[in-house]
């Protein structure tokens, strides 16, 4: 048992930190740290910078551009990139669809899709949820009917993040309507330019346009775009959702946000002292720091245990990371809102208008406080709500 990072691990961290801080434009890192929206261009720029250094898909196999890291190195990479405000490499490409294609795809599919996916030459989005299929994902109704060497896809997906930028969508469709729920589903890759696809924006509480509805009306998809076996798409989905859960602790982002909380609360005065000098406020910050440190250690313990796991199904204990990680993220946005106080009220619809509206540039930092607080309610809902995570823990860990 050695509970400290080794000298090599610390050197690895230093190297990454230097790269992140010098290679990724400060304007992008600042926006991430201040919870402002990035443009598509900024996301692509940042992704490509990481990719140039082999840092976009380090968890992929070496032959497809991955690095040969230990779990601890992966952990350091994630934490350090988050702490420095580096936008995550597009998760739909690198954490969701990529691993599925690697695990279930044909050699031809891998060659065709993976390099462009890793480089973000193609932007992918996720077609899983439907209006009637949220927590109960297997209740999905979008159909794909085989006609010769095509599927004809009809139906509707929802909560499709950044579909407005996407070149491709990976999609769960029902291919056998007579089979029972989880059976009869297939995993298809669909070109967003195919006729019959309509994207409708959904405006969310923060005023932003992050998610969409995607409608499919007789959309023709070549059968070679089926990943894995026909009717066995649920295997891909389970695999993907398991991967999604482990990335969700977001320790580095929370650390970064706590640093920001301390800085801003040190500037805002309440009475004759700063908010950070108020006993109760600073104890609330410290309480979140404690939870976060515990989460960080828990995450490393799970990583360490995973080395001994035979099965490659996700470790059910990782549901803790989702529950605690989302609670902590929400607590930090709550603290930012509390700092902004009455200055959180003005609503600025986008960066441009915000610029024009900035009557009081010295309190400009307060503008994203409320939208971020609203927006972060999603983190306990998506990727399997926290109630679903508790169900998983109850069944898979406690044996109920």
């Amino acid at each position, binding site marked *: 048992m050695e509970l400290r990072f080794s000298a090599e691990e610390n050197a690895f961290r230093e190297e990454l930190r230097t790269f992140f801080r010098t290679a990724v434009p400060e304007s992008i890192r600042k926006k991430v740290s201040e919870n402002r929206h990035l443009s598509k261009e900024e996301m692509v720029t940042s992704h490509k910078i990481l990719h140039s250094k082999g840092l976009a898909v380090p968890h992929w196999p070496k032959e497809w551009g991955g690095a040969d890291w230990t779990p601890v190195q992966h952990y350091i990479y994630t934490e350090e990139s988050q702490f420095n405000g580096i936008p995550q490499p597009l998760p739909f490409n690198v954490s969701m669809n990529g691993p599925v294609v690697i695990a279930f795809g044909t050699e031809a599919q891998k060659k065709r899709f993976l390099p462009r996916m890793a480089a973000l030459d193609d932007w992918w989005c996720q077609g899983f*949820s439907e209006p*009637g*299929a*949220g*927590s*109960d994902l297997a*209740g999905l109704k979008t159909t794909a009917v085989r006609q010769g060497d095509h599927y004809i896809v009809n139906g509707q997906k*929802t*909560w499709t993040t950044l579909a407005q930028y996407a070149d491709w969508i990976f999609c769960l469709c029902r291919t056998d309507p007579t089979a029972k729920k989880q059976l009869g589903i297939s995993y298809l890759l669909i070109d967003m330019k195919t006729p019959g696809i309509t994207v409708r924006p*959904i*405006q*969310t*509480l923060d*005023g932003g346009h992050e*998610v969409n509805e995607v409608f499919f009306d007789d959309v023709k998809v070549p059968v070679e775009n089926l990943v894995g076996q026909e009717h066995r798409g649920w295997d891909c989905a389970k695999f993907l959702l398991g991967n999604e859960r482990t990335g969700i602790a977001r320790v580095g982002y929370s650390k970064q946000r706590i640093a920001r909380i301390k800085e801003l609360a040190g500037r*805002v*005065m*309440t*009475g*004759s002292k700063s908010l950070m000098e*108020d006993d*109760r*406020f600073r104890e*609330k910050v410290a309480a979140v720091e404690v939870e976060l440190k515990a989460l960080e250690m828990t995450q490393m313990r799970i990583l360490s245990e995973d080395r001994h796991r035979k099965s490659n199904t996700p470790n059910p204990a990782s549901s803790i990371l989702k529950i605690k990680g989302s609670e902590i993220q*929400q607590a930090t946005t709550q603290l930012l*809102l*509390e700092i902004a*106080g*009455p*200055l*959180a*009220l*003005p*609503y*600025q*619809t986008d960066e441009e208008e915000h610029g024009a*509206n900035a*009557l*009081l540039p*010295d*309190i400009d930092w307060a503008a994203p406080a*409320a*939208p971020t*607080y*609203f927006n972060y*309610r*999603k983190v*306990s*809902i*998506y990727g399997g*709500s*926290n*109630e679903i995570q*508790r169900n998983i823990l109850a069944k898979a860990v406690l044996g109920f």
Partner: protein
Amino acid sequence: MDFDLSDEQRQLKDSVERLLKDTYDDLNLRKGYMKEPKGYSDALYKQYAELGLMAVPFSEEMGGLGQGLTETMIIAEAFGRALALEPYLPTIVLAGGVLRHAGNQAMAAELIPAIVEGKQTLALAFQERQSRYDLANVSTTAKADGKGGYTLEGEKSVVWGGDSADKLIVSARVSGGRADRSGIGLFLVDAKASGVTRKGYPTQDGMRAADVTLSSVRVGPEAVIAGPDKGLDVLEVVADEAIAALCAEAVGAMAALQELTVDYLKTRKQFGVPIGSFQVLQHKAVDMYTAVEQARSMAYYATMMAADPDPKERRKAISAAKVQVGRSIKIVGETGIQLHGGIGMTMEYKAGHYFKRLTMIDLAFGDADHHLRQLAAAGGLQ
């Protein structure tokens, strides 16, 4: 002690609720009002006046109905349930409160008839960018011109309803250091007066506010509502009455969100059953219900104590109410969104709008922790 409404109060409640149901039940109507020039429905504002809502708190001598805070509570709760946008709080509760507590006969005679008829709106400019929740933290200055008038200079920020108000009541420092309790006067300023610049914007909850710059704004002696010896006392009692009204508004919004959530749980199906059949979700709905009821109790308490003659007791009670309401807001707002899942995160559905308004009410005049601090420092409730 008696919690029953009188017949008149019940009638008021029924008529306000009926009007607001007809005009606000459909979220698209509300979106329409937001797009109107003032950011709310001017026609509806006039209908409130026809119902007599504007006259409620003003004394009969002032041209009002001489009713009490209970009636204001009834109206505010209905506004909360409807998510009404119209500037009743800025005009009637805040600016109107200042006129009730400090206005002179002449000013009342000039302003109140137009207010009561819904022809004039006012706003109270009491916040500044550095003031946070301290009403005494005022850096805008009022310099006496030697003839009983003043020249105002400074910036007021986040003035609720300030972008469309016809007149502003401005707190400004006549003497003393920035956070001194004495030396703050209250002045009536025409929104179009020379030297007044307004920057209006929408607020997070779909309403409107403004940042106001006052640059050598000259007002005459007739514009002085409260002199430096009593400006803060007036601001404080008005703020306490406004907090009581905001508590009631929050109760209306929370109750509506709680009911909406229960309805959703009963209809939304997953895994082949209504999600309301899951015990965990039922119990969360129960916790929302309990939080609403506890908040309602404290909204009553605030209404009762806002008129207490002892300012220390009054302020402690108001803080206690704001603490409970703020904590209930967190439970009801966050749980309400969580139980709705994705749909609760969208602007196309009412739940999120309740959540946003409730969150802003928590921040208005001090959040729960701010008031807990105040209450504890004053020795607690008993």
